[in-house]
C-alpha cells in the first residue's frame, strides 16, 4: 500500500509536538522510540493520541514490533 505523504506528515507532526522534539529531526524510517526518547507507556500514549487524531481504532497488537513512522503510517492508513 502506498502511504499518502499527508498521513505520514500528520503522524510525525503530532509526535514532534507532543514529545517536544524538533520536527526536522524526525524522518519516516526513524526508530521513534529512540528519536522521540519514549518508553512503552509513552508509546501507548502516542497510540491513543493517533486514534483521536485520525478518528480510528488501532488495536495495539497491530503495533507489536512496529518502531518506525513509515510502518506506523501504513497501519493507520489501512484504517482510514
Amino acid at each position, binding site marked *: 500500500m502506498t502511504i499518502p505523504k499527508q498521513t505520514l506528515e500528520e503522524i510525525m507532526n503530532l509526535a514532534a509536538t507532543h514529545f517536544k522534539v524538533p520536527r526536522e529531526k524526525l524522518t519516516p524510517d526513524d526508530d521513534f522510540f529512540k528519536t522521540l526518547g519514549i518508553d*512503552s*507507556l509513552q508509546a*501507548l500514549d502516542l497510540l*491513543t493520541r493517533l*486514534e*483521536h487524531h485520525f478518528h480510528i*481504532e488501532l488495536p495495539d*497488537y497491530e503495533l*507489536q514490533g512496529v518502531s518506525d513512522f513509515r510502518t506506523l503510517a501504513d497501519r493507520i492508513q489501512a484504517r482510514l
Partner: protein
Amino acid sequence: MESFDGQSLSWELKDGVIELALHRAPCNEIGSLTLDELEQFITVLEGFKDGARALVIYSEMKAGFCAGADLRELYQQSQELEPKDAARGVRDYLERIHRVLNAIDASPLTTIAAVHGVTFGGGFELALVCDLIIADKMARFCFPELRLGLIPGFGGIPRLKRDLGNAVVRDLLLTGRSFNATKVQQVGLVSQVVAEGQSLKVARATAAQLGKFDRRTAAAAKKFIKPIPYEELRREIDIFCELFAQPAVEAGLRKFAESEDPRPYLP
C-alpha cells in the same frame, strides 16, 4: 476515623464524599500490601453509610489508574511454596480481593471511579465495581490476562457480562487489545469522557450532584438496577484457579516477572 494515610492508598471523608486515592508506584499494582489496606478500608466503609453519600476512587500515579494484580509478587510467592500450597495461596488471594470488590460493588453509596492512563486487568476490574466511570480521554482499558494463560480473576468477566453485550466482552477478553476511553464510552461502560487531567475534578462535581438526592432512595435504586453476580463470581475464581495450575501460566508469569521493563503489562 475520617481519614487514613497508608503505604499504598489513602482515604478521607469530607463533606459527605469519601475519596480513596491509590498511590503505590509504579501504577498501583494490587499485591498483599494494597489488599491489606483495601480490607481495612472496607471495614470502615460500612460505618460511613450514614455519614457519606458517595465514594470516589482515583489514582495519584501519573502512569494511570491501576495496572491490576501485582503479578511479580504473585509469581515470587508461588515459587516459594509447594504447588498445592501455591494454589491455595492464589485462591485465598482471590477470595480476599473478591470480598473487597463485592463490598464496594454492593455499597449503598454511589461509587465513582475517576480513571486516567493505564486501567488494565485488575485495575479495570476495580473500576467496573463502581457505579460510574469517569475517564480522562487518554485512559486506556485492557484485559491482558490471556497473554499469561489466565482469565481476569477479580470479577471482571461477570461484571462485564452484567454491563455489556457479549460480543464486546469477547472482543476485550479474546483479543487482549486495549480500548481508548471514547471506545469504552461508546460500548456503554464509561459515563463521561473528559479532558486530560480532569477526571477527578469532574468526579468531584458529580459526587456533589449526588448530594441533592435522598440517600435511601439512591441506595434503593442502585440495589434494584445493579445486581451482584455472586454465582458467576464464584465460578470465575474456580476457573482462574484451574488455569493457574497449568504449566503455561508459570512460564508466562516467569517471563513477566523477569522482564526488565518496569511496565511489562503493556503490549
